[in-house]
């Protein structure tokens, strides 16, 4: 059995109130159209008695919200909608009596298209009973599928399942404080309490979050997580670390936390899974490391697609499943870079460096190989044009270069 609540010309607020009212009775609610809500009442008779009693309870519930609505109960959703739109007050259609009870209602309760309504009007068909008496085959030939569907409803023979309405899930906690908070420490307790509530609701709906929005008055921070999380302690620590790195700078009197829901992470553990940090722990460790050395100094290096020396960027570190299959290309000795490069004084003889001095290192150059000329980005302000040399000084191997553009020598690194 299905119940329908109908309010003609309902506003948005009134419709929302109808949905709330319906969800108080049943988890299976259909948001049919503006001012019309259908829900499943099967099994409720054990709680509220007869179907008339259920309809009366629903009407009371609507009335308690300051609204007046028609309530109808029928064996199928479409008959309930027709009855609610056609009859005032409370209506209960017993199974098998739908066609008989609905026959005097206007065809407009079916909600036909204007063209179809005009055709029916020209035929002199104005009630459901008259429409139901027409032969189905001829209806199909003249009015098409829409006509067949409405003809079926006019006979009270609808059989469609309802489309359940799911409320948009928002996981928000707001707290108005009596006085302004100026330091981060008291926020720990407030955020912990708010996130406890949010995570409990996420768990109850089998959801997690990968994005947390924090509003502290006018200051807004967004915490993006690489994986879905619903651990309140972890989220509190990450938010506090983020706030320590980016302090609000003003007193806080209103705290709002919203977690954007997503599907929780499902992990299949195995005996032969390679050693790697737990994602939640890793995220916390990375946040702490960023607080120690700065955000730009933590991550995985990515070499840029250019020939510019020492061209790389730091990207966010995350344990990836894919494996790099790129094998070692050389077995050369590694370079330790001087960042920034060190300016050097070099003496030349026969176009080769013979003596050098830079940053505490000075002496004759025992061996020198070069030069290797590289240049690039000549159309940009940060162009480079240089001649590289590998030199041996005091039992150590260095890479130096002559910057053609700047007319200076620099030590770039040491081979080690």
């Amino acid at each position, binding site marked *: 059995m299905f119940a329908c609540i109908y309010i003609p010309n309902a506003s948005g607020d009134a419709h929302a109130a109808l949905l709330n009212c319906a969800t108080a009775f049943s988890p299976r609610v259909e948001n049919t159209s503006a001012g019309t809500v259908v829900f499943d009442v099967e099994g409720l008779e054990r709680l509220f008695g007869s179907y008339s009693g259920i309809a009366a309870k629903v009407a009371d519930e609507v009335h308690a919200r300051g609204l007046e609505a028609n309530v109808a109960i029928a064996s199928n959703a479409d008959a309930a909608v027709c009855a609610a739109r056609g009859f005032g007050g409370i209506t209960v259609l017993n199974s098998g009596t739908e066609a008989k009870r609905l026959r005097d209602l206007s065809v407009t309760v079916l909600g036909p298209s204007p063209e179809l309504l005009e055709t029916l009007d020209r035929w002199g068909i104005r009630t459901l009973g008259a429409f139901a008496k027409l032969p189905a085959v001829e209806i199909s030939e003249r009015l098409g599928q829409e006509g067949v569907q409405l003809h079926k409803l006019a006979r009270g023979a609808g059989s469609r399942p309802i489309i359940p309405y799911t409320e948009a899930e928002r996981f928000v906690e707001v707290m108005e404080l009596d006085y302004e908070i100026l330091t981060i420490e008291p926020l720990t307790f407030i955020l912990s309490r708010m996130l406890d509530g949010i995570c409990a609701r996420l768990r109850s709906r089998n959801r997690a979050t990968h994005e947390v929005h924090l509003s502290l008055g006018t200051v807004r921070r967004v915490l993006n997580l690489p994986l879905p999380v619903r651990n309140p302690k972890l989220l509190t620590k990450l938010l506090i670390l983020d706030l320590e790195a980016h302090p609000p700078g003003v007193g806080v009197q209103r705290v709002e936390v919203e977690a954007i829901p997503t599907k929780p992470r499902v992990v299949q553990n195995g005996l032969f899974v390679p050693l790697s*940090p737990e994602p939640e722990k890793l995220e916390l460790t990375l946040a702490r490391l960023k607080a120690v050395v700065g955000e730009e100094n933590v991550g995985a290096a990515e070499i840029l697609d250019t020939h510019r020396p020492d061209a790389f960027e730091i990207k966010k570190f995350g344990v990836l499943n894919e494996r790099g299959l790129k094998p070692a290309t050389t077995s050369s*000795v590694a370079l330790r870079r001087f960042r920034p490069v060190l300016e050097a004084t070099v003496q030349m003889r026969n176009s080769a460096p013979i003596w050098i001095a830079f940053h505490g290192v000075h002496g004759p150059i025992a061996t020198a190989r070069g030069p290797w000329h590289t240049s690039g980005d000549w159309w940009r302000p940060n162009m480079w044009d240089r001649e590289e040399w590998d030199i041996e000084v005091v039992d150590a191997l260095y890479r130096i270069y002559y910057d053609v553009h700047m007319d200076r020598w620099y030590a770039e690194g040491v081979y080690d």
Partner: protein
Amino acid sequence: MQSAILPQGFALSRSRFARARLESALGERISSPFTDVERRVLENVPTGIASLDALTGGLPRGAITEIFGPLSSGRTSAMISILAEAKASDEVCALVDGNDAFDPKSAAEAGVELNRLLWVRCHKLEQVLKTTDLLLQGGGFGRVVMDLTDLPLSHVRSIPLASWFRFQRTIERTPTALVVMNSQSIVGSAAGLVLQMKTRGRIEVVRCRTQRHVRVHLHSECIR
């Protein structure tokens, strides 16, 4: 200390009697004070350098390995080889770079998977110690390299021995291998393995236009 109650007629030597009294007195706090703590035998991880592996059997997991030596002795090459070798076991590694000297291009050419290497660029000794502490406490890294090479030796020597023992205790029962790089030995007895890198003979520089090869004839010596 309460005296131990011994069954009559049970002859004990003086030492056994003293031991029994001590065990009785410490009974509630320490269950077996004279029993050696069972040490977990962990595997060694290869360095990727055959001669070094033959010499040492690899780096011990759950222990500190110290590699030190002068400039151009091959310390950084050994470090990169250790990181590159982690690819074979699909491990995630971390590098605590004491003076921002790591060259990603050299590492990638040597076979290091940069997307599985967490690079932390430090500029102060305090940052290095704090970072290493956080990484070891967080766990899950197969190899953690702490590069102190370019930091002033006076600063590095000021690290208390207790810090090294704390690191050692942190990783003791984990599969993490902590590698400390330096120009002189500083870890002391907290290290499970100490390697001194020395340059021997002539340094040969070979370089062509398309590819750069710099070969250093290395000699590695196992101290402990």
